[in-house]
């Protein structure tokens, strides 16, 4: 693969601009659905795009007591992490541009990069809201990360591969939502935790800590963090639907499956009350982790006894 194609793949299609636009589209669907469930009108289709343009045009205010390299660098790292993760997943139902053994692990770690950047960004400023927000972001990361990883490990075990494209191929013949329902639920809820969607929005609970770790961010920096989140949403939806909902083998199956999954997630978002951070951690480690471990144990035993 030559340099030009690499640049196109990373910056234009399927990662880069296309992914960002898709992220905006999915963000709009999410916002519109939640709004409709809450008896509101909701935004028009171009609202996330308009938001991004507006934020780009706005001045980025730099707080007095910060490390400027971190302050300006972190949003870029967050966005870069999310965009790179897109290279290994069957985005839009197409074959991933890059594929190697163990790329599942790489993707999961790249997806954690935006969260860690947000945590660091909050720690970097002296704002008390940011500090508390950063603590909560990182606490939540430790809560959902392991169960989410384990939930994606289930399909990998039955497919006998750590390679996303191979698991996707295996899943096209096996609807794993039927054989591993617990894993599916944990994966969806884990994704909501990762994206800090309600009820896991304690790290940015506006009624307590304004905007959490991102309180001091404005303009471009804020926009990049938002875009990283939107990109993460698309990648997360792609991963979960390709593993559990019968794989992705084209743009049609991609749209249908991810949007159904998003619909399900927005119902949960509007039905549930925000959890306190201690309740979030309790939920994940008392129920999420244990249930998904039991699921994996069953999978391993099944693999071991059934030839």
């Amino acid at each position, binding site marked *: 693969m030559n340099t030009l194609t690499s640049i196109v793949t990373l910056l234009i299609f399927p990662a880069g601009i296309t992914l960002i636009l898709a992220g905006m589209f999915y963000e709009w669907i999410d916002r519109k659905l939640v709004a409709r*469930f*809450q*008896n*509101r009108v909701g935004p028009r289709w171009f609202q996330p795009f308009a938001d991004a343009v507006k934020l780009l045009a706005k*001045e980025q*205010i*730099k707080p*007095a007591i910060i490390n400027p390299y971190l302050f300006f660098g972190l949003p870029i790292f967050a966005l870069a992490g999310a965009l790179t993760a897109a290279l290994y997943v069957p985005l839009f139902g197409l074959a991933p541009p890059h594929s190697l053994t163990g790329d599942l692990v790489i993707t999961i770690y790249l997806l954690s990069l935006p969260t860690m950047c947000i945590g660091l960004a909050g720690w970097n400023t*002296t704002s*008390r*809201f940011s*500090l*508390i927000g950063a*603590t909560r972001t990182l606490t939540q990361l430790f809560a959902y990360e392991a169960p989410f990883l384990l939930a994606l490990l289930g399909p990998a075990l039955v497919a006998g591969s750590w390679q996303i494209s191979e698991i996707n191929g295996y899943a096209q013949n096996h609807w794993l939502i039927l054989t591993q329902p617990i894993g599916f639920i944990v994966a969806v809820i884990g994704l909501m935790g990762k994206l800090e969607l*309600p*009820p896991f*929005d*304690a790290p940015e*609970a*506006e*009624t*307590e*800590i*304004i905007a959490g770790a991102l309180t001091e961010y404005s303009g471009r920096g804020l926009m990049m963090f938002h875009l990283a989140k939107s990109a993460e949403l698309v990648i997360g939806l792609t991963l979960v639907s390709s593993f559990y909902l019968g794989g992705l083998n084209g743009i049609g199956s991609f749209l249908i499956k991810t949007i159904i999954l998003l619909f399900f997630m927005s119902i949960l978002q*509007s*039905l*549930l*009350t*925000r*959890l*306190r*951070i*201690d*309740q979030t951690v309790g939920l994940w480690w008392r129920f999420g982790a244990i249930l998904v471990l039991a699921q994996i144990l069953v999978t391993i035993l099944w693999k071991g006894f059934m030839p």
Partner: protein
Amino acid sequence: MSTEQKLQTAEQLLAPWNKETIRPEENRLDVVIQPEALHEAASALHEAKWGYLSAITGMDMGVEAGQLEALYHFCNGPAITSLRVRLPRAGAVVPTIADIIPPATFFEREIKEMFGIKVDGLAVTDHLFLPEDWPPDVYPQRVDFTIEQAKAMEVSHADQMPEPGRVGENTFVVPIGPQHPALKEPGHFSFTVDGEIVTAAKMRLGYAHRGIEKATESRSWVENLYLFERVCGICSHTHAMAFSMGVEQLAKVEVPARAQAIRELVAGLERVHSHLLWLGVTAHEAGFDTLFMYSWRDRETVMNLLEQITGNRVNYSANVLGGVKCEIGDEQSKAIKEGLTYLETRIRHYLEVVTTDAMFLNRTRGIGTITAPEAERFGLLGPTARASGVARDVRIEAPYGAYVRYPVSLVTETNGDLEARCVVRLKELLVSCFAMRSILDNMPEGPLTARMPRKIPAGETVARVEAPRGELFYYIKSNGGEIPVRVHVRTPSLCNWVSVLEKAVGRQLADVPMLIAGMDPCFSCNDRVVTVEDSRTSENWSWKRLREYGIEYYSR
């Protein structure tokens, strides 16, 4: 025990310190005591469980008289006993009674800042209402305070950072307000947190203090009615109602029965609107926006009804001195009944949601529990007190106006947590709806207003009304002229603050907005100077510069 017996008991209790007994009205007893005897006299009433301290009114008798007065009002059902302390204008000192009656702190701080009555032994010395750089011997509610003195204050501003952020290794001070998404109105709280646990709480009010009480002293009785309606946007009707009731008592004017019924009806609708608003705010603080959106959607029904009856959505101006100005015809009556039917089904639904939704209960059940003795000690009022099992409701204890003819039943809960506060408020609405129906079905015929004199006879009176947040207390004094001498307003929120500050300590930061919302605070009620910071250009600005810019920006 009848009102008369209660007053006799109080007189006996206060006999050792009594210098002079005045009976300004049938249900009131005024006992003049020496400042030194105040603590003992107050504790005698308190220990005998004779009612509760409802308000402390400060008064300036004028430069010639050279005297200040402080009135400590204790309410017991309809009976009111006031301890009247006469003080010299220079060097007025009273002992604190906050050590025996904690809610007195806020009242004492108010008379200290506004009238310069020094309170001996007051634990907190910070300003509650006035700006930090307010000069030490200027007291805005004294009669000789002039507008020129107030203008001089506008150019002077404190130059300081809000407060130090980090106070220990893992301990921070988290400021909530004056501008904060959790607060819809300006107030300032600083919570010291160790990790997520709150270890200390402080509060500051006055960001919206416009000096309404002072302003009344230069406006006619009629003008003041409209001014008081604007004390609070949510319970505007109860404020106007309390003021009119007081003025009518002074003028000895009997309000027609039909007008009283309409007053109760509008007050009932206002309660529905206020409590549904509160439910939405609480749900939002808990992060349950769906409930927030739905309850506010349903609130529109009652807002439309209020608009249909009075022509306004917020400051309804249903009252005039001596009656009401809006008529309830057949068409309105039908619309209200239809609206009530819809609202009742919705309220029952919300009652089910707040008692069964497991995720919402996670955030309300067992949070901020106030036991009945604590509620008594903090001097809580309204639904906050009733959720703890304290039967405190002016509509029932001392029925006024149409509540004699169309009574409401008392709603109490025993748990005292946030869940109980939700339940009490919603059940109360069902009771209100029931009372409103019976008013509409048995509306008395007759005129809407009685004739009021332009000059109100000299005298002083107390009017108490149950606002959606609790007992609203008006003290009105007239010298027989066209303008009042003194009107003192004590709003229910001021009494309920203690519960937040005491209960936040030891809880998680995440519960704090819920605790604040749980007592349904109304800041504009408490306040009666806003500083806003704003930056538009790219530069490094110091806090000082930022403040100056903001001040300049908003004075343009």
